[in-house]
């Protein structure tokens, strides 16, 4: 099931180049908003689909597990995540589908992600103490819970406003993108497809799609093989973050970040594999799968550093952009809103580092940027 969802997502994301990191980066660096509108469409569609599913009784777990009350950690994590994803040239899924399509740099970023995720275990005790000490509304996750109203009230208000905005964009033709690339899938279709997949996941296993726990697990497996004694002392890998019986299916789910084949592994690994394979199949079918190693060395350093920062941030936040933007935002989770708030300045800093240091393109850049801004 997860494999099928992953495969479909991999193909869809490759064909439409649904790069979430790029959406934020291009908005800030080039003032191009076309792709971030697709993310908005994805969030609003998911918001409506989730709420319909909840009203129909298909979402007994609400809010879903592994979503926590808000703390400044969400903002800091989002900020670091924003820097990391821009330097890495893709977020946690962007890296997967690009790697599947043959990008050597994304494979390096993937290595960085695993390393960064495992690195978090070293700072986990102090970071989790900070999180505990700074939680705003203990036991409350969403806007509805904090304000004590039925979730449908804030959700209906936000989705009505969102639909109004989307409708205007649609009338102005701002939701379509002209592209000369072969086999292009309009990103608005990708947004709808991804929100359907996310809803299906929420209904079937009680959670929307997530992938970063599997990165921690891979990191854990590697660390266990190399430094078993050190690993033994890390409390993070022993945690059990997931423990419930899903009412709709009666399946008992238990799991955590440790390198064991638990429910999280069973749910997430097939999705990860599916995205990589789906994208690879899509690239091969278009005859676009080629490996290019001859890339400026600075870019290798950038993607590796970006991957590590992103891996670390995805545990500090906690969890990644997919969980927060495609899962948490549609139910108006406050931690996800804070994460989003951190992403913008993070992507801005990441864009600055990338354009000034990594590409050292400043002299030509200003002119180019100036021109772009005038003409668009």
């Amino acid at each position, binding site marked *: 099931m997860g494999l099928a969802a992953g495969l479909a997502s991999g193909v869809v994301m*490759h064909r439409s*180049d649904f*790069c979430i*990191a*790029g959406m934020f*980066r*291009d908005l800030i*660096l*080039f003032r*191009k908003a076309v792709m971030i509108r697709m993310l908005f469409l994805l969030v609003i569609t998911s918001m409506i689909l989730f709420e319909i599913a909840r009203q129909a009784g298909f979402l007994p777990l609400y809010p879903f597990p592994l979503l926590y009350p808000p703390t400044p950690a969400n903002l800091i994590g989002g900020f670091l995540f924003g820097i990391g994803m821009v330097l890495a*040239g*893709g977020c946690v899924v962007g890296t997967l589908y690009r790697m599947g399509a*043959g*990008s*050597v*740099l994304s494979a390096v970023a993937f290595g960085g992600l695993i390393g960064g995720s495992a690195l978090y275990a070293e700072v986990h005790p102090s970071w989790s103490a900070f999180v505990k000490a700074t939680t705003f509304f203990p036991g409350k996750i969403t806007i509805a819970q904090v304000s004590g109203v039925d979730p449908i009230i804030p959700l209906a208000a936000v989705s009505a406003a969102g639909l109004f905005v989307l409708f205007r964009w649609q009338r102005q033709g701002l939701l379509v*993108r*002209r*592209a*000369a*690339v*072969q086999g*292009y899938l309009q990103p608005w279709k990708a947004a709808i497809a991804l929100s359907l997949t996310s809803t299906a996941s929420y209904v079937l296993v009680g959670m929307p799609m997530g992938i970063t726990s599997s990165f921690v697990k891979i990191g854990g497996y590697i660390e266990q093989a190399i430094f078993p004694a050190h690993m033994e002392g890390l409390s993070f890998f022993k945690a059990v973050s997931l423990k419930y019986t899903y009412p709709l299916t009666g399946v008992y789910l238990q799991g955590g970040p440790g390198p064991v084949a638990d429910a999280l592994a069973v749910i997430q690994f097939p999705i990860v594999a599916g995205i990589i394979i789906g994208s690879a199949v899509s690239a091969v079918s278009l*005859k*676009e*799968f*080629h*490996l*290019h*190693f*001859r*890339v*400026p060395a600075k*870019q290798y350093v*950038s*993607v590796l550093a970006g991957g590590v920062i992103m891996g670390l941030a995805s545990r500090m936040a906690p969890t990644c952009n997919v969980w927060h933007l495609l899962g948490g935002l549609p139910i108006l989770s406050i931690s996800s809103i804070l994460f989003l708030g951190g992403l913008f300045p993070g992507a801005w800093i990441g864009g600055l580092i*990338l*354009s000034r240091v*990594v*590409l050292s*393109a400043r002299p*030509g*850049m200003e*002119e*180019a*940027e100036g*021109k*772009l801004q005038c*003409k*668009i």
Partner: protein
Amino acid sequence: MQNIEIDIRGQVCPSTLLFALKEINAHNGELRDKSVILSFLTDNRDAVVTIPESASNMGYAVSVTKREGYYVIEVRKD
């Protein structure tokens, strides 16, 4: 007319676009007096969308052709 080929295959986003803009600006004069055509080779699908978008916004004519495993984006002044 000289055709300058610039290979940006395998590069990370958005260096593809930034590189292209830098090259277009560096050859601005030659492009305008039509002594030069710039051909960017890229395997980045996103760049195949963004480079033509930006170049045509800057007033250039752009054509995209697909070769074995990559795209060629030709930028010229008509």
